């Protein structure tokens, strides 16, 4: 990858990765740091990566970095220990997309990430599996469970009657 292609990758994918990380951890400073680290890592191996594969590489690297940060902060909520009581808080918002994003924050980190990759970036199950290190079947399961949780949130908060 040339310097020009690297700069194109910054321009083209920077906002996408930032949104993905920001929605995953809800911390703009940490999201900025993670994306900066990701591009710093890309720059260090800029000659070894083809431009065609750089988007998936960026998402994968940013995702793994984010998981490290979450684990370091002990904020990773496993799906087995997920506290369902926090899911159905009082919801006053009326914008469906806004409510969905608030519901997303209450999902486990892995479900959140795979749904974001699916909806924001349109990745297929295989690509999401490559980014997150999950099998295709695991990706499907996380996405379907996440959708059900989001729907239940909308129903129980009276957004959907």
């Amino acid at each position, binding site marked *: 990858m040339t310097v020009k292609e690297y700069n194109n990758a910054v321009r083209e994918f*920077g906002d996408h990765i930032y949104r993905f990380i920001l929605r995953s951890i809800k911390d703009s400073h940490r999201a900025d740091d993670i994306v900066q680290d990701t591009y710093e890592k890309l720059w260090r191996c800029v000659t070894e990566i083809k431009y065609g594969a750089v988007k998936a590489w960026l998402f994968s690297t940013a995702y793994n970095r984010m998981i490290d940060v979450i684990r370091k902060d002990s904020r990773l909520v496993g799906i087995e220990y997920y506290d369902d009581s926090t899911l159905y808080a009082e919801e006053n918002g009326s914008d469906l997309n806004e409510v969905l*994003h608030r519901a997303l924050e209450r999902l486990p980190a892995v479900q959140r990430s795979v749904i974001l990759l699916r909806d924001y970036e349109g990745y297929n199950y295989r690509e999401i599996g490559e980014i997150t290190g999950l099998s295709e079947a695991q990706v499907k399961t996380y996405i379907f469970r996440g959708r059900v949780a989001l729907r239940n949130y909308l129903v129980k908060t009276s957004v959907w009657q």
Partner: protein
Amino acid sequence: MAITEDMDFPRLTPPDDRMPSDRRLYRRPEELTDDQFDMLAAAWAEGALTGEALAELESVMTASPGRRDRAGSFRNIRLVPDNESWPGMRSAFRLSPALTAFRRSAIPALLAVAAMVVIIIYGPAGAKLKTINAGRTVTGNAMTVAEIPASAPIIAVKRITVTPVQPVPVEQTPVAEAREEAAEASEVIRVKPLALTYSHVSASSVAPAVNPVMTPISIRDIQPARTLQEEKNWMFRSMSFLAGAVTGKEKEVNGYMIANGCITGINNILGWNMELEQVSNKSGEPVAVTFSSSLLSFTKPLNKNTP
């Protein structure tokens, strides 16, 4: 349980027993629980169901309008990204090596040149030059000269005989010699810096007889410096004159000022943090200079013979 007749390799063969109530275990698609249906509906909304699974779900939806609506609601659960933009994007861009080299070398050089041009045009020296040239037509090949102050630093003596009729040829000597010959009547003249003493040769068209003090001196009258010390003294006095021309102030320049100016310039250009301080005694006379930086610090006493 039957045993094969081959006694060398006996094997167990499964019996033909049948579960009597297996019919009760069969399930129809309509019997899916809500949780199970939701998982299928989520997959269906994702477009991940094919074949028999899709057919079964469709049959359930056909049979139950409520479940059809429930499955349809999953199609609306799609996240749409907002317009957040990455605030640190600008810092992630990289310059090509050529552009980096250009930014590090050419831009500071251009800025320095621009600053010098501004100082020359709008600074005190520029104003002074404008004053000199006011009301005078300058020819195309003329050069700009600065005004020579009346109290030029280098002093020479022109010896004059007392005899009223025949003037004696002029000869220049240093001040020390002139004092030794105090018995003779003498007239002190100011010797101008070397570049200006050539005015009668190269710049006569610019400043012809502007100032009576600027009496041209023949280049043959300029004696070469006899010692290295005299040469250094001449250089410092010339710098003093140039500094006065640029700043508009007749201030004597010493070695400390020059060194301090160089250090300040290096600090500004390279971002270093070097300092040079002059240490003075109670009467205000400089006695030493102190240099300090992150790598080296020393104090050096001043040599009083240094100009």
